[in-house]
């Protein structure tokens, strides 16, 4: 731990871009603000280009890649500095990292830009763990059983499950509980949840049941699409629990420890 | 050429025309090293002989393995026939073990597969057991490698509910791939080649495993060790 902290100090206040995603912008602003807060506590200067909109994934996966390409094309010049681009939502991150270059296969100029972006794009938990090496040893220590849900594409394309788990393990007092069928999709799947609502609902419902069966105190994820779907089903079921972005949990534990520290 | 033959030729031309339209690499894309990729699957605990590996796997597939010797196997066979109450054992008259069987098994219990299947169906379908030799065995999976043919027909190892197979230890190969290469089949294939791994089985009803689906219910392997000149 101390060696890692040492290397972090050698860096001169690194800069990152923050690609908030449209879901966070409109539906889950807390997650975005908390993610920025946590990034800043790791010693990073966060830049949020205001002309950003959406990664284009909904159109892309529904069969309208030409529309997605136009949306992506409008954002290719938002990240001019060679800084990492941190994305606080797994599947959107995968869109920038793995699919933007595919959108411009026949457009060398844009392809080069998209590839440049893809190479610098990094998922939020991956960045916190493997780049910022965030030290959480001083966070609040009260016991908390936490279930983690990871977006399928992010887990498969970028191995984010391990990052999320490792971060939770760094939080003192947090016990990771693993739900049955952890690797199974939560049923969101973008427009899938609208085109095949019954099937999607059955999947989401099973996921919620599996998470509840763990007896966890909190459920977190680093994908706001999945969270939106899970939370709105909880709301429809009139159940009080809500899943949160992993950044919100980390921030809360850090804030509380600051309070504890002052009291001591 | 009859009507359906010319239709087939028309279909053939149309299919090839469409295939040739496609962009492709007619030289193929090449295939990486097969052996290396299969190696982890056939990796076995060190210190185990090929025979031990074969036996362990064969038994895991519900085959019964009787370890025996070139001189002793007929005795073991008789004991087995007695224990199972076998009344009709089918065997190939041209088989390398035909003479030994003739000398060992009581005549009223031994039936030769000496006619075309069509003429033998009622008896073969009523028989209790069939005995065959084997070409080889696969240590990595506990499989028998059979080459049915003139001497030992295909149905001998298939129709009777008990299949007894004679396997010589020195014929064992490590893997299917090793056997394919050893026998050079790519150049000359027999009409039928088989690997047999345990008795026939099914799990088609509620995933519940049942032995004896359509082929043998029981597979007994007489594994002959220390086979010298007389063994094969």
């Amino acid at each position: 731990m101390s060696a890692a902290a040492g290397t972090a100090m050698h860096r001169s206040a690194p800069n990152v871009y923050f690609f908030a995603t449209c879901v966070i912008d409109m539906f889950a602003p807390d997650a975005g603000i908390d993610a920025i807060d946590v990034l800043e506590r790791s010693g990073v200067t966060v830049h949020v280009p205001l002309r950003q909109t959406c990664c284009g994934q909904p159109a892309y996966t529904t069969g309208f890649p030409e529309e997605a390409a136009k949306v992506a094309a409008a954002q290719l010049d938002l990240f001019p500095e060679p800084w990492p681009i941190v994305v606080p939502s797994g599947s959107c991150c995968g869109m920038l990292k793995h699919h933007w270059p595919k959108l411009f296969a026949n457009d060398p100029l844009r392809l080069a830009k998209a590839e440049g972006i893809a190479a610098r794009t990094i998922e939020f938990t991956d960045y916190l763990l493997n780049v910022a090496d965030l030290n959480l040893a001083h966070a609040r220590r009260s016991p908390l059983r936490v279930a983690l849900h990871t977006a399928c594409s992010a887990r498969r394309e970028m191995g984010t499950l391990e990052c999320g788990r490792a971060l939770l393990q760094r939080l003192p007092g947090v016990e990771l509980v693993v739900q049955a069928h952890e690797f199974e999709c939560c049923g969101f799947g973008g427009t899938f949840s609208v085109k095949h609502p019954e099937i999607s609902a059955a999947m989401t419902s099973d996921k919620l049941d599996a998470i509840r069966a763990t007896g966890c105190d909190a459920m977190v994820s680093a994908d706001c699409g999945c969270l939106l779907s899970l939370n709105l089903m909880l709301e429809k079921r009139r159940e009080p629990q809500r899943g949160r972005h992993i950044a919100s949990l980390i921030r809360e534990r850090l804030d509380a420890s600051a309070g504890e520290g002052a009291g001591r | 050429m009859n009507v359906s033959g010319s239709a087939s030729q028309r279909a053939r031309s149309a299919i090839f025309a469409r295939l040739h339209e496609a962009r492709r690499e007619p030289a193929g894309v090449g295939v990486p090293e097969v052996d290396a990729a299969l190696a982890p699957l056939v990796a076995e605990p060190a210190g185990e002989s090929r025979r031990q590996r074969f036996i362990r796997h064969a038994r895991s597939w519900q085959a019964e393995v009787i370890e025996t010797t070139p001189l002793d196997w007929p005795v073991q066979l008789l004991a087995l026939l007695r224990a199972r109450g076998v009344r009709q054992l089918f065997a190939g008259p041209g088989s390398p073990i035909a003479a030994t069987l003739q000398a060992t098994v009581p005549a009223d219990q031994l039936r030769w597969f000496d006619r075309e299947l069509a003429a033998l169906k009622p008896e073969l379908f009523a028989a209790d057991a069939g005995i065959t030799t084997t070409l080889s065995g696969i240590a990595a999976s506990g499989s028998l490698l059979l080459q049915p043919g003139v001497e030992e027909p295909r149905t001998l190892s298939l129709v009777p509910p008990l299949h007894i197979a004679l396997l010589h230890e020195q014929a064992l190969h490590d893997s299917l791939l090793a056997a394919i290469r050893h026998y050079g089949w790519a150049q000359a294939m027999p009409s039928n080649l088989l690997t047999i791994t345990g008795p026939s089985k099914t799990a088609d009803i509620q995933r519940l495993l049942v032995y004896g689906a359509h082929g043998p219910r029981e597979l007994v392997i007489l594994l002959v060790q220390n086979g010298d000149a007389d063994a094969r």
Partner: protein
Amino acid sequence: MHAEAPIKLADFHANARAALNDPKLRDSFSGAMDFLIERRARQFPDPAAFEQLRRVGEAVRQHALARLPELLVQLEERLTALGVQVHWAETAADANAIFLDLARRHDAQLMVKGKSMVSEEIELNHAMAAQGIDCVETDMGEYILQLDGDRPSHIIMPAIHKTKRDVAEIFHEHIDGAPLTDDVNELIAIGRRALRDKFASARIGVSGVNFMVAETGSLVLVENEGNGRLCTSVPDVHIAITGIEKVIEKLEHVAPLFALLTRSATGQAITTYLNVLTGPRRPGEKDGPREMHLILLDNGRTQAYREQRFRATLQCIRCGACMNHCPVYTRIGGLSYGTTYPGPIGAIISPHLQSLHETRDLPTASSLCGACGEVCPVGIPIPDLLMRLREAGRHSVAQSATPPQQALRGQGEVRQWAEALAWKAWRLLYSHPVLYRLLVWFAARLNWLTPPWQGGWTLARAPLRPAPQSFRDRLAQRRQQRR
């Protein structure tokens, strides 16, 4: 014997809804799929080793597809030299006509058939029954379904949706003298006895093929039950039917594919039988077919082949791992798809066998979670293919700049003006930062106007309601506070 239920493709939504509301079906599928997932995982304990083997499997199939016309010619030459008659069929009707012609030539009223998905694809049983020929399924699962007039719901475990109680009742009703029993051993014994008579009396045996080896002219069959061996060694005539894509170049290529197939399909390291047939019975042999035929079926495969983007579809070795791991398939079962091949592989192959329009709901019936692609033993990028099919359905040849000769059947016919318009509007808003900012600004401030009913979404979820303050509002506030 019942006629099979007709395919009801257009009813995918209704089928799926019915399946979701059938707790018995949900239980049997989720139990069976968990079981298969677990068994497969035990066969591939080391992901790196699996990856290495899969790369070989993928390369074997890609290599064969790259050389497909050459390998088919080589295969045909070898088979012809061995005395096998090779027939070509462009459509299901062509293939059935060949079967009928052969049955008439041999005066056969009865055929015994080993498990073959291609024979399901051409609805062989149906076509033969219409001509008074009894084509009897001999795979236990398929036999149960045929007696009941039902269809396979899984390509490897066809009767997975039946309980032993169901089977007991089916046997009791359709097999003379079958007692009503719950004992699975006894049930299998009943099936075995009933089918033995059929094996002994049929003139023609029918089988599918797992792999065809071009260099040797061999047909490779993989099975556990022994019915495939009986079908191919007892009757006088053996007719094998398969798709043109099943050819591989070399005999040794069987080894990696066989290792991948059995482990991926049922989590077994090996099946009871690997049966390699090279020509009909030879002089002096006392069994095996005197006459052997191979029917090579196209039925839309050349369409998938023509365009490189879709060619990977044909790499499939029909293991069923993609369906075992599919969260959608697990919940709705195989019958809901209404196609011969269900699950993810069905969703990517059926549009070529039928048409994009007929199968319009299948490519979208996936959350693109990627489980299928992750387990595919020959590396088919199934989620990518699903997306390409979604695109092809929604873009005509002109709209997608597809070369006309590569148009897919039904291309562009899934397009609905409202959907296309919605995405154009979306693009307009999201590619213009000013418009987008306005959208977010209004959405936050007018969030009380959120409609309580939002199509399928609100069926089981609360409405999507914009937060009263957007992320950018909050960000601006935060900056101000810090100043």
